[in-house]
């Protein structure tokens, strides 16, 4: 009897898995169809073509959009890794007055929606003359963050404090202990958090939309796609090719580093 219920569960799960993957397969298949076949529902194109991809780059500077998204995500990852692990290290290792109160305050900011802080930030960036530049999309990542700090602190707490104490007796400073002992021992946590931060930045639409709504040489792939949608909506073979070049790098990276991806998401569950 257990076997039958197992089989039924597996059947339902298979159906669900197909529903998860089918849209991506279809995205790929449509992007390989000539425009004349775009309303043909066949999963395999009758006369497959890659012509949609070069056509994209003729219509819009997708190479710039890809580069901008990649560059901004990489800078954001660097900023987040550096500043969050620095703060996480202090919260995990060093005793100082008001430490717990400060940490609780930091965690409480996880509940604060970005919309209630974005308006003054927008005004400040505008006042600084940075509206219409890429700075507002990466500068904030150099100001730490509750999620990353919490994550790195939890990981640092698993490193025996005796290592730091011994290094200190040998005359190592706090910054030396951080850079030569704690960071090298935390590669799994850093990798998982890096992936999380990269995804967050790569997939971000809201900030890019408010700071760089229309400058195709400066803006990100997500805004490019949204603009593409308003201009070429209905040309589905082109649209699917455009979506695919945004999704493909992440999917490839996902298959290469699946373990770290899953850890990154699992860590966001604050266990």
């Amino acid at each position, binding site marked *: 009897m257990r076997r039958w219920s197992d089989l039924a569960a597996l059947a339902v799960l298979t159906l669900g898995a197909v529903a998860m993957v089918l849209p991506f397969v279809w995205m790929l298949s449509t992007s390989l169809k000539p425009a004349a076949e775009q309303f043909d529902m066949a999963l395999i194109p009758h006369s497959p073509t890659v012509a949609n991809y070069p056509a994209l780059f003729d219509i819009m500077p997708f190479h710039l959009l890809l580069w901008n998204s990649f560059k901004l995500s990489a800078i954001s990852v660097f900023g987040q890794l550096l500043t969050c692990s620095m703060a996480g290290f202090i919260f995990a290792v060093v*005793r100082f007055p008001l430490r717990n109160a400060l940490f609780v305050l930091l965690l409480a900011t996880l509940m604060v929606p970005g919309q209630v802080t974005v308006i003054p930030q927008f005004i400040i960036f505008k006042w600084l003359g940075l509206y219409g530049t890429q700075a507002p999309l990466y500068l904030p990542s150099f100001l730490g963050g509750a999620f990353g700090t919490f994550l790195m602190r939890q990981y640092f707490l698993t490193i025996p404090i005796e290592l730091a104490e011994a290094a*200190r007796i040998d005359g190592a400073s706090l910054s030396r202990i951080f850079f030569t002992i704690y960071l090298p021992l935390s590669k799994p946590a850093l990798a998982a958090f890096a992936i999380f931060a990269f995804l967050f930045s790569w997939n971000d639409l809201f900030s890019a939309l408010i700071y760089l709504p229309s400058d195709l040489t400066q803006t990100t792939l997500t805004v490019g796609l949204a603009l593409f949608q308003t201009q070429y909506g209905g040309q589905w073979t082109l649209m699917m090719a455009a979506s695919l070049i945004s999704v493909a790098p992440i999917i490839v990276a996902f298959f290469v580093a699946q373990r770290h991806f899953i850890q990154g998401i699992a860590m966001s*569950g604050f266990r």
Partner: protein
Amino acid sequence: MADLAPLGRERAWVLVFLAPTLVGLALGTVGSIFATVAISFTNWDLLTDPTWAGVSNYQGLPGDRLFMKSLWNTLAFSGLYVPLTVVLSLLVAMGLNREIPGISLFRTAYFLPTVSSPTAVGLLWTWIYAEDHGALNEMITALGGDPVSWLGPKVALYSIVIVNVWGAIGGGMIIFLAGLQAIPKDYYEVARIDGATAWQRLRFVTLPALAPSIFFQGVLTTINAFQAFDYIYILTRIGNGNSTMPTLVFSIYRSGFRFFRMGDASAQAVVLTAIIFAMTLVYFRLQRRWA
């Protein structure tokens, strides 16, 4: 907890290491919240100086049809999205928490939408939902039915909930899988020896052990629900900064960054934050009652 007390000049290092976080906390979060509240009492278009508006931005909200519609849509969206996402990702996690060869392929499949850009995948969904020649309508007409306006004002809420749940199941699944794998196998052995049925094992072993994960997933999903934006922007936006299914975040975006009515947008942001805080408080109350 054993930890180090800073000595002499190490105090300077502590400050250096914490400086980015402290600036972010003071300016980026706490300061910005106060600033938003202050701006909500003004009229400000960023071109001329702000003028004092008192509470008129708040008083105007109930009469603002777009805001009220957004508020209702946000509540309805959350009411559907949160339970569906939590329950479905829990079921998927329980289904996939078994040792069968090839099961990791399943996990990968469910996880794929979670890592993909909602903007890009949203474009695909606009086609699935398209009224003319969209995938769903092609199927319906092939079966002899009438095409549906999936993203029109009447049905958009449900269409949008489906896309968002589709995109969120994988993330929840991973967290529940981690929770399930942390339950000691002995618990199930003991329950089986005592003659517990499958339902009783679920009710008295699995669910209590998962309660903390379910609680956090509930809080996180709720916070996410009130901030949902990407799919809604891509799938429902129509001309002039409007939408067939505006939510609060969409309305804030529209007032603040399309029409630069900063006071109005700030008042809406304050309302959104108040709702999220109230919901979080409710969760913590509920948790105290159960635990």
